[in-house]
């Protein structure tokens, strides 16, 4: 896509934004009825697509600039090439973000005119001034960053990296700004003793933005975007590896896939805790949200989330396993026996400790931290060691165990109201369905992955990596990770939105339409899959049109 075409798309998006704001001022606009999908699903599809594109264009530049800096510091051209190739794809997807953003505003205004007008009025300064200014700034900075890549080399490289940092700064502020109204819809401002309507009437713009779930959502999305960006970088590498005709190209894209996966997994490790923080704040805002999520209408959505996260952790650890296989001399790598021992004990001990000292009681750390750090602190003093292969296999076993605990429900029913003895856990084993056990399961997945990367690090320091010689199935693992990460984003996006129940803005503005009910998980899965496929098709097309021509020209 040429510059003028991109500019046209960006201009269209801005026109949509301002036009939308103007249209929102027109009173009494009747809502449009979307055929087949209905209005809510139409908004869902467009919003989710927009968020996926936006997630990538905000997440990717974070590791792009880090990669560029690493390349500059280590004088390793692979990092610079990775950064530039991901930026090329980002530039194309930036246009798609703008396009879907404009479409989102139009669809929202057409389907829910009264609510949209109400929301725009409450955040008028943000929607009409702050957000467009940030959007324009980001557009200018992104294109400057991309088009000065070759010009600002050598001594000017530091200037280019600084520009990338500025781009990320503006991108992060944009994310935080737009999270204001988004989180406001879930947890609007409230104060004790005053009705939400009365408090809202006196609340400032900052009060509305700085609501209960704003910062947790910011952190969750920021980390989620980096995870997602990393996995999409892995996807780019997988496509290019599969299409590569020369050994050096395969070696480079094997390396890129590894780096993308490393970034994705590195950020993924923080994601369960960020998600937990968001859920904790939502429950703290209104305790009735908690059973709606975990025990009632959305409980099976969380079962599916557990299944997806389990698969993602299995796949990412399998990728490490495959990566280890291409290291010459890996069979000599050993690790203290404490590592697999702690892996095995972790779910049991952590469940017990967190039951006795529930979050946020810090006493639990006094028991857990020494245990978790034991392999790395006192491990070296214990003469018993096991092979890297054994540690990783025990790790896989514990990932399966961790996922089994995560997935074990209190009852096989979609709502507590339908619980009968034949579908319920025995009361003595109910602890398996409670939060301490779920947290332990999540932490086991994280701990196993960290240990596996520690082993990998030891392996590369003791052996030699043969880039390009990785098992071909690893490319499907990278594709699987990207697809599953996107699918999970769609699932959790639906959950966050559904938490508003039958309100546009929770407890403030009811949704009187016939569609204000909780859809089934099956129905949601169809749409989430559809959205993921459309997004994937666009990303795949963007990769092919941007990178294949440059691939044929070769790289320095």
């Amino acid at each position, binding site marked *: 896509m040429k510059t003028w075409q991109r500019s046209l798309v960006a201009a269209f998006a801005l026109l949509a934004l301002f036009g939308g704001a103007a249209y929102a001022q027109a009173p009494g606009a009747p809502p449009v009825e979307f055929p087949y999908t209905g209005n809510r699903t139409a908004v869902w599809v467009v919003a989710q697509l927009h968020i996926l594109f936006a997630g990538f264009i905000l997440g990717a530049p974070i590791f792009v600039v880090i990669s560029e800096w690493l390349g500059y510091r280590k004088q390793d051209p692979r990092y610079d090439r990775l950064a530039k190739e991901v930026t090329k794809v980002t530039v194309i997807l930036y246009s798609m973000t703008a396009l879907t953003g404009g479409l989102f505003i139009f669809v929202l205004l057409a389907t829910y005119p009264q609510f949209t007008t109400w929301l725009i009025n409450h955040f008028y300064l943000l929607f009409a001034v702050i957000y467009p200014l940030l959007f324009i700034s980001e557009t200018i900075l992104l294109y400057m960053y991309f088009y000065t890549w070759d010009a600002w080399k050598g001594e000017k490289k530091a200037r280019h990296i600084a520009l990338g940092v500025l781009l990320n700064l503006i991108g992060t502020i944009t994310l935080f700004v737009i999270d204001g109204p988004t989180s406001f819809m879930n947890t609007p401002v409230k104060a*004790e003793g005053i*009705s*939400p*309507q009365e408090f809202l009437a006196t609340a400032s713009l900052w009060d509305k933005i700085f609501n209960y779930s704003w910062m947790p959502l910011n952190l969750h999305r920021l980390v989620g975007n980096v995870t997602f960006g990393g996995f999409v970088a892995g996807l780019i590498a997988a496509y290019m590896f*599969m*299409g590569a005709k020369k050994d050096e190209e395969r070696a480079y894209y094997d390396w890129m896939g590894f780096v993308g996966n490393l970034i994705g997994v590195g950020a993924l490790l923080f994601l369960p805790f960020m998600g937990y923080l968001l859920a904790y704040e939502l429950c703290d805002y*209104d*305790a*009735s949200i*908690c*059973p*709606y999520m975990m*025990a*009632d209408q959305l409980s*099976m959505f969380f*079962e*599916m989330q557990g*299944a997806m996260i389990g698969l993602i952790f299995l796949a990412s650890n*399998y990728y490490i*396993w495959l990566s280890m*296989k291409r290291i010459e001399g890996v069979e000599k790598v050993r690790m203290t026996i404490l590592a697999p021992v702690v892996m095995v004990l972790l779910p049991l001990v952590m469940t017990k400790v967190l039951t006795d000292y529930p979050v*946020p009681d810090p006493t639990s750390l006094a028991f857990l931290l020494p245990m978790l750090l034991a392999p790395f602190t006192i491990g070296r003093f214990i003469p018993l060691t096991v092979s890297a292969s054994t540690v990783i*296999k025990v790790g896989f*076993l514990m990932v*399966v165990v961790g*996922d089994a605990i995560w*997935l*074990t429900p209190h009852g*096989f*029913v*979609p*709502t507590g*109201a339908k619980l009968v003895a034949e579908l319920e*856990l*025995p009361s003595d084993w109910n602890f398996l369905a409670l939060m301490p056990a779920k947290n332990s399961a999540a932490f086991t997945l994280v701990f196993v992955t960290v240990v596996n990367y520690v082993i990998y690090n030891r392996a590369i320091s003791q052996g030699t990596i043969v880039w390009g010689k990785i*098992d*071909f*199935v690893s490319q*499907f693992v990278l*594709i*699987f990770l990207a*697809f*599953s990460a996107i699918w999970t984003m769609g699932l959790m996006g639906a959950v966050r939105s559904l938490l508003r129940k*039958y309100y546009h803005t929770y*407890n403030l503005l*009811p949704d*009187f339409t016939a569609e*204000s*009910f*909780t859809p*089934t*998980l*099956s129905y*949601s*899965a*169809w749409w*989430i*899959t559809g959205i993921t*496929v459309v997004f*994937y098709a666009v990303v795949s097309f963007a990769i092919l049109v941007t990178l294949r021509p440059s691939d044929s020209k070769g790289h320095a």
Partner: protein
Amino acid sequence: MGNVIKKLVIGLVVGGALVGFTRAFEFPVIFQMMFFAYAMLGAVVFMILDAPAVKPMSGIKSVAVLVVFYIVLCTVYISGASMWPQYDPEDEKGKIEKILKPKRAATEQGKADELIARAKALDEQVKVLSARLKDLGGDQATKDQAAGGPGAPPATTGAASGDFMKLGEEQWQLQECYNCHKLKGEGGKKRGPELDNIASYLSVDEIKQKILDPKSFMAEGFEKEYEKGKMPDKYKDLMEEKDVVALASWLGTFKNTSVATPKPIKKK
């Protein structure tokens, strides 16, 4: 092939042991099947770990394999999500309709109020014009103008007083109190106290006060700092007065001393 058979046998043995274990501890059949499935998942994972390397592919073959891979992923995710128990939206629609009905009515009432205000303004204008006409000598002033005045107050819906207790029980269901409080042996996940003996401790007015201001009473054993805000402080905004009174009155009938309802302590 030997690898697959070996892992399969181990998976079946572990799965069988888990089924035996869960059966001994009286787990329902569905959980026994679930644990067996976990064992088989473990077996598949270990089969994949030791599987031989896949040869590189290129060209049309790699594209075809990729497309098949995507189709498999989509099918597995959709069918996987469809296999979990599905919440029936019909169970919820009736509840939502009942909860939103007064809000919708309030919205329509708001429009009606606006119309009444406009009518009043017009009425004032008519009075002013009539007075002018009278001053000008017109003796046909509208003597009966007042007939179009505000008149009687708008008819109120009037709460059905027939079965007040039933209304209270309905509010228990609509507001989903059962999600946190156990009552008559149903509901509750220990988030809030069991309420079968609440009437031994609190009067109807005090229960009403607790619903409208959750921090007015705190039950014994639920006094930790992070538990103080657990009960949502929203019912004064969400519920109508008559609904709160009905719910409090209904709860005020529960005096089952065999249930250990924790004692509420007055805080405000």
